[in-house]
């Protein structure tokens, strides 16, 4: 599992290469091996559709739907009314309220401090306090 994560992280640090990369293939391989681990989060009772893998110290808000195929890195925070499927979120990320992510990758240390977003098939990164500040690369 870690091996694919490392590969994916190597791809997304070079944003100009994401489009031409085999990122979807890497994600699919990763998800096919993904285990379920949901007994270690902090927060309200979300809905989980397995497999969902949560690293330690993940915070989850109210009325959240995670899965299937969701990996969330350590110390990341998922706000209220969020829905995520087929997505990899690396460490120390903050996902804003009412985000809907499908088939996405969120780079480590990203922080999205605004509400409402609906994205598919994209890599998201950086710090954004407003929707128009969001760094997003489709694949």
């Amino acid at each position: 599992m870690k091996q694919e994560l490392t590969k994916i992280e190597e791809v997304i640090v070079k944003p100009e290469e994401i489009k031409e990369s085999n990122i979807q293939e890497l994600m699919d391989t990763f998800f096919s091996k993904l285990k379920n681990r949901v007994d270690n989060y902090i927060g309200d009772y979300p809905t989980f559709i397995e497999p969902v893998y949560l690293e330690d110290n993940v915070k989850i808000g109210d009325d959240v739907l995670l899965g299937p195929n969701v990996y969330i890195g350590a110390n990341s925070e998922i706000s209220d009314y969020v829905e995520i499927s087929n997505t990899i979120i690396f460490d120390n990320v903050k996902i804003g309220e009412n985000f809907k992510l499908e088939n996405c990758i969120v780079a480590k240390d990203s922080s999205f401090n605004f509400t409402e977003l609906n994205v598919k098939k994209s890599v998201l990164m950086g710090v954004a306090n407003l929707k128009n500040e969001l760094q997003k690369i489709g694949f």
Partner: protein
Amino acid sequence: MPNKEKLEISRIKEVESTNLARDEIRDEVIETKKAVERDNNLIADKIHQDFLNNSIKSFDIVGAIGAGKTALLEKIVEILTQKYRVLVICGDITTRVDADRIEKHNAETIQINTGRECALNAYHIHQIIKNKNLQNYDVIFIENVGNLICPSEFVLGTDKRITVVSITEGEWVIEKHPMLFKMSDIAVINKIDLKERLGTNVEKMINDAKKFNPEIEVITTSAKTGENMDKLLELLGF
């Protein structure tokens, strides 16, 4: 609409009571509730079409906690997996206990933990099958969250709905839940092996089910002794 108001509406929707809505937002609450049900039905229709297109037989199983839904599924799946490729989706507010029990009988399982929600809905099922090649399955079972109330509103797009009650729930359990039996195709009265000991009036239960829904098939079973498992499988079309 301001965000605060939106949240308020969704909260009210969650507790399922229009009466709680202030007059100013009452219409909005009602509209939202209607839309949610409509959306669920649309998704369920699409799921059912996907199942049919792939020649999959599909069933959802509802019933109270402890009625024997999982125990029956264990028996059914044990037999069916000898001939068919079976997927079982298990709903529970938390844990993977049921999926683990069923997996022992060679079926692929997927657990949904609904957290605070008291029933599965069509969107949950849609999210699972969007990642699946349905050509890999012949039969799909969905065990709903243990509960006789919430699941009645949400159809899941299966061929048939099976409602399981057990005679340990008392002979009034069907009489008290008309809605669910109206929406079911098969009523299973389980734990029939305990009939002598409990003295439950099973005939009353059968009559109640037929009274609410003349079309319903009623069958008594024991997941413990295996009584009538063959008949149940026959009702399911195997």
